[in-house]
């Protein structure tokens, strides 16, 4: 049975229980993963699974159940469990309906590599060995590496007539290397294996490992201007943009409630959420609820222009769904076990007009930050103090030396009003397309 057949069978099975509405999400995944963790610790993993998630609605009571599909009887069991969950669930006064069917049209390029999953293990290892061999020649140790290829296909169907299927491929590459101390990290994301430029990855890995090894400490507390590289800037934006998440607005967790059309950032900042970005990891013609995706501006020249919603939060707030109801994130695993919720699709931060050297030349005293230990900001307040793993000290417009293990202190909502430069070369980092950016007036604390 293919994914559409399973969804259809599940909805048919539910009829005898008379739910008001029902939704089936079926996903089929094949994955190949090569991992390397040093001599004696390498291996290859092949995974495949087929999962189903059922959301059922009875008198505004919602239940969800999911499981793996081995045999047809598994589908019935999942449907029954979902109905059982709905029957015991309290009424949700804000629930209006599952999404109605909408005309879905258009096409997206570069999201499916039909040959990728059939690549032989040997070919995948051979490609990855390019990095391993280069490292050996340069006397650098690869401490950890991973090449992950995923092909997935899903269908979302509901009793109102939504029926949407989607097929895509994802590639994720991650390598860490060490010269003498510290580590350099590279990550690459793509929808096609052939697009991976192993030579560029190697150059970057070598540069970062070498710099980590030569990094020095900085003493005392300083006020600095910093340039943040796209690799971790994407993590910061991911935290920042939760403030525009419809669910955060609905649940009153966001500082941007009632701030539409107000200035929230520097005029140079424009952020677009684009569910149909060519080559985007999250791209599809519809989201995981079957609502058509679209391109929308979230922040336009510093002004908050829109929130992003799944169907439920959009209707609960009397807004229009934006095609941002996702169970998937960039890691497809366990997508069927989750209920679709408001999330970003692919995000583009519009690039500026400065190349990297200009961004550096204009700094009197500051840092170029390659990597934080964890670029995640969990505080509701937006306050952060992030440990810097790899960076360069900049004095009078020149790079002086690598610096590591210092803390960068600031507030994410505050620094977005202190942008002093945006690079002109955007990069893909996970589901973000963004350039390096420069911020002023941050606090740096060293030993």
């Amino acid at each position, binding site marked *: 049975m293919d994914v559409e057949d399973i969804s259809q069978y599940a909805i048919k099975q539910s009829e005898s229980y008379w739910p008001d509405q029902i939704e089936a999400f079926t996903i089929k995944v094949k994955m190949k993963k090569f991992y390397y963790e040093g*001599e*004696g610790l390498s291996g290859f993993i092949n995974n495949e699974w087929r999962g189903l998630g059922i959301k059922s609605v009875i008198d505004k009571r919602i239940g969800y159940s999911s499981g793996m599909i081995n045999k047809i009887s598994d589908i019935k069991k999942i449907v029954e469990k979902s109905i059982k969950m709905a029957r015991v669930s309290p009424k949700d006064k804000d629930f209006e309906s599952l999404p109605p069917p909408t005309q879905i049209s258009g096409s997206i390029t570069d999201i499916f590599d039909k040959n990728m999953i059939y690549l032989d293990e040997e070919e995948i290892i051979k490609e990855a060995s390019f990095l391993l061999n280069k490292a050996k020649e340069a006397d650098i140790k690869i401490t950890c590496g991973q090449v992950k290829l995923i092909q997935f296909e899903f269908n979302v169907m509901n009793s109102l007539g939504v029926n949407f299927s989607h097929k895509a491929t994802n590639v994720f590459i991650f390598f860490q290397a060490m010269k003498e101390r510290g580590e350099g990290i590279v990550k690459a994301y793509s929808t096609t294996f052939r697009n991976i430029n192993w030579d560029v990855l190697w150059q970057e890995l070598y540069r970062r490992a070498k710099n*980590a090894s030569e990094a020095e400490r900085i003493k005392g507390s300083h006020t600095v201007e910093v340039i943040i590289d796209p690799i971790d800037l994407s993590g910061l934006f991911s935290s920042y943009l939760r403030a525009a998440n419809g669910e955060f607005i609905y649940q009153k967790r966001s500082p941007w409630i009632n701030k539409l059309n107000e200035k929230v950032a520097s005029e140079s900042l424009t952020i677009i959420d684009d569910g149909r970005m060519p080559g985007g990891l999250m791209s599809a013609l519809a989201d995981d609820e079957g609502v058509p995706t679209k391109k929308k501006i979230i922040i336009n020249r510093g002004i908050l222009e829109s929130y992003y919603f799944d169907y439920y939060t959009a209707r609960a707030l009397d807004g229009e769904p934006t095609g941002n109801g996702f169970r998937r994130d960039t890691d497809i695993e366990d997508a069927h076990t989750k209920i679709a919720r408001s999330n970003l699709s692919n995000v583009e931060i519009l690039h500026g007009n400065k190349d990297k050297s200009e961004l550096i030349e204009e700094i009197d005293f500051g840092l170029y930050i390659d990597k934080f*230990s964890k670029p995640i900001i969990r505080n509701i307040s937006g306050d952060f103090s992030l440990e810097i793993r790899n960076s360069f000290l900049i004095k009078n417009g020149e790079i002086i030396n690598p610096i590591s293990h210092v803390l960068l202190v600031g507030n994410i909502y505050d620094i977005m009003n202190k942008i002093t430069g945006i690079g002109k070369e955007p990069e893909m980092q996970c589901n973000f397309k963004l350039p390096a950016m420069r911020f002023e007036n941050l606090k740096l604390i060293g030993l």
Partner: protein
Amino acid sequence: MNYLEELVEYTSSQVDFCDVRYEFIDELSVRVENGLVGEIRSTNKSGVVIRAMVNGTWGYASTSYTDWYHLKEAANKAIKTAKKLANFFSHKKIEIKSRLIKGRLGIPVKINPKSVDIRSKIEDITAINKIQKDFSPKIINAATFYKEQVSTNILSNSLGSLIEWHEIRTSLFGYSVARSNGKMQNSFFSERKTAGYELVTNRKIEEMSMNTSKEAIMLLNARKPPSGYITVIADPSVSGVLAHVTIGHASEADEVLSNRGFTINMLGVKIGSLKVTVVDDGTIKGAYGTIPFDNEGTFPARTVIVDHGYLNKFLQNLTTASLMNQKPTGNGRAQDFSKKVLVRMTNTFIQKGQQSLEEIIESTNNGVLALKAISGTADPAGKSFETKVLYGYVINNGQISNLLRSFSLSGKITEILRSVDMISKDFKLIGRSCGKGLGNFVPVSIGGPYLRAKMLVGG
């Protein structure tokens, strides 16, 4: 589950070693936010993983399809990839030092969550959420999450072992968001154990949920923390993060073998103050990281990693134990059947000392008390550590003074460990989820006493 022994028999004739593990995970989660049930979700996950080893390299294949055709196909993939890798890399010979075990084990709990009606669970979680939300009008958001996980594993290997084990874990998590004069702050509580529904009915949950809202409101008026290299009194959550991310990860033998651990060639070397003893123990009753077996069928153990400041032992799985000529320590764990078995911690903590918290505070002239670790990470290769705490207090002339909002603690691992000069007799283990590499989350506990050390503070 049928076919496991047949699969082992089929695979073993073509490889040096193999094991086959069937896993079934049954989960129920409930989310209540601002008084409304946002999610009631039931999830089953099941599948089989086949691991085949040829000349020291592993081929894995996992599948959610459990009929003979798909299982045999998966076995063939595992065999094929192990052989191909063996051709590609020159590996050291691995001799699996697993004991032959046949039997069944489980972790006993007081109230099996499956025996409690789902309506009661919804009522209980909603009641906890109400305590959080109704605490004050300043609480603009309160969320409460409940999760139960019941899992079964059956493992068979080419040495003849056939083991079945069962685990039950229950967790409760909640956060409250306070808002006043345009400022927002939050706090949280978390209880995670290898326990049944008794975790929810415990009377202290009511107090914890109330305190969460109280803390969120209190933090609205917290001050900016000081910055610099400062004396820190770390609470059990922070000393637990220190034990877990600095010592724990660096003592995982796969990290050592891949040249990442700062502990390479350091066995027997003093890496911390004599007051520091770090233990990993997968046998502690009720702790979140406790396991009947690891995912390779090895019994868990109590491993003293650091003994009074001296690095004593590494944590091992079957592969690393062979490569390092050590005994397996029962630390071969994977998130589920689709993930690789890595060397992972179980319950890792710094052992308690003799002093009271009051004595530590009284003997501190200037410093900060750091409370409620939010996250933690270490760079074993760069030898650094970082954790964030939700809040803290200034310590001035032996007394607690100003309340501080969230800040980070950082520094060189060995410098922090060597600076530990006081350890309390209070002790706590805290359930957490630990990821390694890219994901692969397993349940663990972190913990320890209050300890005093020098760290870099920034916030």
